[in-house]
């Protein structure tokens, strides 16, 4: 078991023939991900990376039975790509694109409400289930298969946490990079919930950052429904208020979205909070030995 993607996932790449799409599709195929094709409007019928190119996601679903999509199209067209994937019946949509306007994401969020699909991202590193499928841009070799689920807003910090966990001898069930934008498809709480319901996952690493209230929401949910140990970390304890720290959503607006405030709520809800990013793996190992 795992969450969201596995060896049976039939993955398509939207923005398949572009530079980014080509590079990462190649990496994903090398990893062993079952990439069944891609979509580039106007290039349907061609072959790329020995796989068919389709004009529309609908074609890819009908002809290649795609059920997962990863999106690499530029910001101006990414929201539309998400809508197309959802409308075609794709179940898991992973949007890597950074820089989608908030107005577009409000619309996307509304569109997805009554559709049976899950959006991961945008502005995220994607999802990986080690040894089965990499639907993202993360370095696959860092992730050994195992029993720890990772939920994170940040890319490289996800790799860091996975590396630390794997160095203790543990491994990763799946890792979900949920993204650093103000509006994202899957919240921290929803990702944690997926892991709580996954029998293979024994422990969860939850990595957040300043801005918004998603970690607090997840913490309260864990307090009520949690059945597995959770180790948490919040980046940005030293971030100045009012400044956007790289990610569009990483900005302290009020007293409740600071790192300190979030860490406090997480502790109160029974999450083991790492003060330093260097001890995440160690804390997870200890928590699972008990």
């Amino acid at each position: 078991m795992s969450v969201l993607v596995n060896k049976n996932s039939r993955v398509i790449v939207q923005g398949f023939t572009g530079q980014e799409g080509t590079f990462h599709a190649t990496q994903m195929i090398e990893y062993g991900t079952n990439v069944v094709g891609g979509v580039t409007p106007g290039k349907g019928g061609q072959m790329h990376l020995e796989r068919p190119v389709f004009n529309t996601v609908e074609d890819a679903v009908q002809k290649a039975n795609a059920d997962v999509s990863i999106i690499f199209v530029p910001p101006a067209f990414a929201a539309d790509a998400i809508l197309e994937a959802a409308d075609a019946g794709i179940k898991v949509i992973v949007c890597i694109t950074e820089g989608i306007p908030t107005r577009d994401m409000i619309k996307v969020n509304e569109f997805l409400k009554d559709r049976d699909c899950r959006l991961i991202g945008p502005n995220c590193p994607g999802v990986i289930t080690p040894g089965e499928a990499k639907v993202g841009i993360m370095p696959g070799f860092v992730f050994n298969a195992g029993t720890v689920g990772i939920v994170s807003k940040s890319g490289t910090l996800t790799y860091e946490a996975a590396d630390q966990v794997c160095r203790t001898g543990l491994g990763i069930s799946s890792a979900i990079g949920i993204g650093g934008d103000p509006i994202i498809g899957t919240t921290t709480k929803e990702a944690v919930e997926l892991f709580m319901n996954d029998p293979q996952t024994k422990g969860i690493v939850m990595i957040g950052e300043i801005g918004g209230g998603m970690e607090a929401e997840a913490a309260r949910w864990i307090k009520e429904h949690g059945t597995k140990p959770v180790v948490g970390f919040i980046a940005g304890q030293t971030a100045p208020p009012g400044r956007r720290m790289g990610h569009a959503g990483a900005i302290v607006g009020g007293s409740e979205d600071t790192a300190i405030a979030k860490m406090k709520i997480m502790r109160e809800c029974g999450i083991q909070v790492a003060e330093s990013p260097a001890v995440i793996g160690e804390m997870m190992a200890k928590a699972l030995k008990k």
Partner: protein
Amino acid sequence: MNLHEYQGKELLKRFGVPVQEGIAVASVDAAIDAAKQLKNERGTTIWVVKAQIHAGGRGKGGGVKVATSLDKLKEKAEQIIGMQLVSPQTGPAGKKVNKVLIAEDVYYGKEEERKEFYLSVLLDRERKKNVIIYSTEGGMDIEEVADKHPEKINKEWIDPKDGLQPYQARKIAFKLGLSGDAYKNMVAFVTNIYRAYVELDCALIEINPALKTADNKILAVDAKVKVDDNALYRHKEYADMRDVTEEDPTEVEASRYNLNFIKLDGNVGCMVNGAGLAMATMDMIKLAGGSPANFLDVGGTANAQTTEAGFRIILADPNVKAILINIFGGIVRCDRVAQGIVDAYKNIGNIDVPIIVRLQGTNAELAKELIDKSGLKVFSAIELREAAELVNKVIAA
């Protein structure tokens, strides 16, 4: 991206939002001309000189002054143009005032016939929809109102599909206690502000105060407008509205190399790939006994050129006593970054602050070897905890 009051007002006027009119100027002579022009066109004989900086609380720092004659206007303009304005939001160093807005007087008539309100539009991240926040307590610090009188803060959430509905605009106007012409004008005001927010791709519109004048007009006396950085490509004119004098010069320099840099006031510089890891690295520096001198995300394409640019930008800060480079190589190969560091080091020459390099991920061992063999005064680490220990050691020395 933040806009100045005068820029925000210009944009709002296009959507039919009435504003306190004014003319932005950069010199005292131009200020006097502007005042005369306003007198001719608007009939005002009282003017307000308003410093144009990207920070609130301008009045408290002496950046907003009323002038009742042209002589006084000259005097106030001389005081404000070029001043280093320190407000509750600028930090102790303050901000230099390059431009002022010469604005008409809108506080005419009897005081009891006027009323100030607060109105803002922004994104509610939790509900994933826009919200209009409004209050009868205008002209005050809204955080303070929220603190002391939370019951006086009202919110109206906007359905993303259907937008602001007429009944919502009416509700807002009624709840602000208005009737007659003032009520009608407020309904139009709210409707137009919201339309501007959406069509201009704003991240914030804050009108504080929105004034009901003695003759029942509703005016935006101030306008704080922030536009969504991700939507700049849809509004080409925003590029011309950017005021780089409001930004830290090193940050402007960094952005030319596509480096995401934010200046802080600590003693340990850092260079990291990825925003989350960069923030985490800053936190780690603090825990190790130092304090971060900057945020610097070199992104997914760290190479020799960006590494060198990063070095130069960090080293420009005399407070920096040590530099920590933290790269988790995925697609970025660590040995390439290591080579970049070695080259940059040689190119810049005489870097006399200790450098700690932590490279992990693709080709990390190879990278460590490269650095260790280079003969440079560089401490290298592979695990994050080793890097933290090194920071601690270097600062203590």
